[in-house]
């Protein structure tokens, strides 16, 4: 019998994927998911922290910049340092890079257009807590919806990410929607407990949603947390 896992879904002013993410987490047996408001100063006791997509603070200054400096992110930083699993999706990824928990940053899409489509992704590393249920190199279908998903970092950081296997998801060759370096769609930190990705696995939880390929990401976490 799986033990119960406590799962936080952070909510910032302007988050808009929090409800989808909460429902995705609630669909995983044994997970007890709840919303946590951005002014909260402690995340003690949570086994998993989810940072949802949206347009926190209206994308003022830079995408994710204001949310990254909020009290709950100080708490998140503390838990992440203790090895608690953190997943940031879309704006959540942008927030994690702005908070310095993941290297690099997300620039406006090279096309300057907002992209909203189901994009084929390659599972570049299936040996992480977030991807163990996928077949290495498999192509999965997960939607993207963003205006600033163009992953950028300096050359040394990129080399380090590749060498360490920190690139977990890539857009399929020739189908990069935003111009990101090395077709990067999602990366994890060196310790492997923090992952940020632009595509939305919470929008691909069942066939009736158009794809059920996102579900294995949450199930991978389920394995890792048990």
């Amino acid at each position: 019998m799986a033990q119960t896992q406590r799962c936080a879904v952070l909510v910032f002013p302007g988050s808009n994927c929090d409800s989808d993410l909460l429902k995705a987490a609630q669909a995983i047996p044994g997970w007890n998911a709840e919303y946590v408001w951005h002014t909260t100063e402690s995340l003690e006791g949570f086994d998993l922290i989810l940072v949802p997509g949206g347009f926190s603070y209206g994308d003022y200054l830079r995408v994710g910049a204001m949310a990254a400096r909020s009290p709950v992110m100080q708490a998140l930083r503390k838990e992440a340092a203790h090895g608690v699993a953190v997943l940031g999706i879309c704006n959540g990824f942008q927030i994690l890079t702005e908070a310095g928990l993941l290297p690099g940053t997300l620039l406006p899409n090279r096309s300057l257009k907002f992209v909203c489509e189901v994009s084929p992704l390659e599972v570049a590393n299936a040996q992480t807590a977030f991807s163990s249920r996928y077949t290495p190199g498999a192509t999965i279908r997960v939607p993207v919806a963003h205006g600033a998903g163009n992953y950028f970092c300096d050359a040394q950081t990129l080399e380090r990410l590749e060498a360490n296997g920190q690139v977990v998801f890539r857009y399929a060759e020739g189908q990069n929607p935003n111009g990101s370096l090395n077709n990067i769609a999602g990366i994890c930190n060196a310790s492997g407990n923090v992952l940020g990705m632009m595509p939305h696995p919470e929008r691909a939880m069942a066939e009736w949603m158009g794809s059920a390929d996102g579900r294995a990401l949450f199930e991978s976490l389920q394995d890792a947390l048990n």
Partner: protein
Amino acid sequence: MKGVVTVMLKQDVLDVQGQAIQRSLHSLGFDTVQKVRIGKSVEVDLNATSPAEAEAQLRGMCEKLLVNGVIEDYRLQVLEN
């Protein structure tokens, strides 16, 4: 005192907005345009006893929030009211 922080993308970071503006300028007949870079300007009114102190405060603000050092550079100007 007033501080003016000018934030620009680093030279090696592709500025897609600047490129789009450049194309528009060309289509309007401004054929002399060679390159356009876009940035932002942040004005901060603050209390400080000297321009040097104001500058030190502003540098702290740039490092902690106003500038993302991965992709941006900045320059500072302190104006006495």
